């Protein structure tokens, strides 16, 4: 009789232990497989010079942004330069995938746009600025 009572209790303990182990494995797998950072891309829509006192080798590349603020340190953009054209790549944004540990190093977006720093090899001068993806020209705005 006593043996018949113990057997289901053991099965229950075994099932609980297996469940805990499975939960631990799933948690570890989630932590290991979830990237700490995510990468997104934005297409440039315009460029803006810095104006007086600003670094002549820096252009601000603009792209639509639907949030109130943004973090300049999360964004980067590159360009291929020739004597006549500056071809601007997509804007890369690397941000914390889990905002729990994230912060934001930012400013309030102006006119619904982010402004991302592009460092050129030489001042823009009379060169044309185009979007690398489709070659379409980007307007160069004054500050």
């Amino acid at each position, binding site marked *: 009789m006593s043996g018949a009572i113990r057997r289901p209790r053991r099965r229950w303990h075994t099932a609980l232990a297996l469940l805990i182990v499975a939960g631990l494995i799933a948690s570890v797998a989630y932590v290991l497989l979830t990237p700490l950072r995510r990468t997104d891309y934005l297409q440039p829509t315009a460029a803006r010079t810095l104006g007086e*006192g600003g670094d002549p080798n820096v252009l601000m590349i603009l792209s639509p942004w639907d949030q109130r603020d943004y*973090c*300049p340190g999360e964004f980067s953009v590159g360009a291929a330069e020739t004597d006549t054209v500056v071809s601007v790549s997509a804007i890369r944004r690397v941000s914390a995938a889990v905002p729990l540990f994230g*912060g934001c*190093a*930012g400013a309030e977006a102006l006119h619904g746009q982010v*402004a991302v720093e592009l460092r050129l090899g030489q001042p823009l001068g009379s060169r044309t600025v185009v979007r690398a993806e489709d070659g379409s020209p980007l307007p160069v705005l004054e*500050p």
Partner: protein
Amino acid sequence: MTIHPLHRIVAYGAALIIFAGFPTMAQASPSDPADPSRIQYVSDDGPGLGELTAAYQLSLRLAEENPNDFGYPTVRGGRVNLPALTEAAKKLTSGDAGERARAKAALDARPLPRGIAKRTETTPDDLEVMKTLDLSASNSRTFRRAEEQKNAAIDLTLAADPDAKPWMSYIDEHSGKVIVHVETPTPRLMATLAKGIGADSVAVRVQPKPQIDHVSRPSDTPPFYGGARIYTPVGSCSDAFSWHSGSTQMMLTAGHCVPNGGSVSTLDYSMGSVNRSSEESWDTNAGTVFMTGQSTFRGDVAVIRSSYSTAGRMFRGGTSSTSSARVAGMASGRTTSGMKVCSSGASSGEICVWTVTHDRTLVVYSDLTIARNVTNTVERWDGRCVIPGDSGGAMFGVNSDGSVNAHGVISGRMTGPGWCQVIFTDIYDAYYGLPGYLTTG
């Protein structure tokens, strides 16, 4: 007595691990400064400065203006201890007020150390406070070395073990140790601190990294006041205080609003411009950087050369306020722990709930940019905090006649469950690092 074979295996295994697996532990001597097990943990901020605030502020000024003559000031035994490391420094508490004035004048007559654009003036009150300082500790590291250690604590640990998430460092006013806030005190982080700083010169506080944000009045016209909305190359920010150098009119703002210099405007006016590198202290990828020709980090600050006149006044009240107050002057010294201050920015208006917790700290943002030599304040979050668009705004104290004193320039904010911190650049970093002076009303 018999020993179970399993117990024997466990005992042999443990011995093997102790003697073979952790050779560095076995080799560390009890006084080895590179022994990470000697690093202390701290769990709170310690008491505030109370009535020693003025003496501590003066000590910071003396040490900052003479970084190789003094050590880092601390509060011990009811006095402010300012280690005097040179003969010139030791004369500051000797004799009567006249002798102290001569000793101070002799210090001031020497060439400016790198990173200091100008020294502050010595007042009769300073000379009285000076005699209360304890200058006897002569075996301290210099102030300059302490500052280097504070920076290294973040730089080294971020490079060695970023997953440990070191996110703030500063020098404790009581122990003089570099305090590093980390999420996880990993063995690699602790070993790096012990080796790079010295186990007895550093302590660790385990604390989750809070949410950290930079933060950015609506249409200001000349003469420009502080606390107003400005438009910069990165977006909307605020300005803090009016500033001047000779006949040049200026406004202070945050460096991260103009990290490469450039033009700045208000809604209707082209306010002026910032000269890159020499008049702003921020790099979008690195955070605080040295301004041209300097060797001291100056938080997150920039000066706008205005095309129009500016005034020694600052907006107070809400976001659409037109009321303002006279700026009476700079705070009497650096803003230190326990002090109560207010913020004034274009996006959140005036908030007067902040208590300073730490000064001259390093704060690591989530994108791994580092704000160096900034000041932290905190308040239980009642729904109000500075927000993006307040960046570059003013931190100030209110005098009994309604005028205000300048304490600093808003850099960013940190938020956590139920609380909010404002991070700002002390006005003395603007004073020491930038050309010009605060414009008073």
